[in-house]
């Protein structure tokens, strides 16, 4: 794939960490990170489209189901916070 030279501004600490890790090319790291972000955004957009199609076809989900989903993720995240991770 053709490459394009650009100027970006990134956190100094991140640059130092990447260099300390012995990474040969900072450009390859930035390129890889951009690729992952593009992929993540494209998948998120696809998920939103899919949900919108279902909403149009079947109407909104019940408040109980929506609340249960929130609770399930809250429970997951609460476990994280109590373990000191995240």
């Amino acid at each position: 794939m053709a490459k394009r030279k650009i100027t970006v501004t990134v956190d100094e600490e991140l640059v130092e960490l990447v260099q300390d890790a012995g990474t040969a090319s900072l450009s390859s790291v930035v390129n890889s990170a951009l690729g992952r972000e593009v992929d993540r955004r494209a998948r998120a957009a696809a998920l939103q489209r899919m949900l919108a199609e279902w909403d149009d076809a079947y109407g909104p989900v019940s408040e109980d189901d929506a609340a249960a989903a929130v609770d399930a993720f809250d429970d997951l995240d609460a476990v994280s916070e109590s373990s000191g991770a995240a």
Partner: protein
Amino acid sequence: MNGVSGAPLVLDAAGLDALAAPRPPDRMRALLAEAARRERDVLVPTVVCAEIARGRPRTRALEAAVSRHDRHRGERPAVRLIDTDFALARQVGAILHGAGSGTERVVDAHVVAVCVPFGGGLVVTSDPDDISRLAAAVPAARIRTTSL
């Protein structure tokens, strides 16, 4: 930080079957909507597809569910399939060994294993007890289950 470092929503066979249903259950839609709101990935170990790809109608529904996108517009599927490479296979083996489980749990162990790099995950499953037993083998990962 919002949540478990972006811990994903992970689907086992029951979750994937629900996703591929002609009319996905509201509970599944709600979980996907909450995952979207929290900017979480929706992951399926590719091997889980083997449990759903049974017969032409079901297989076609599965194909549509995991690949609905327009490649020409640079789109991606909403669901990310995680293929089994050596590192994942090694993690699966470690989970089965740690849980004292046999190969009959290899697919469930994949579901648990794909959570590990994220530090955890919310697993949509019809076998919460099995998933929890396997998850106990990786205590550093924060894995929770939910059923439809």
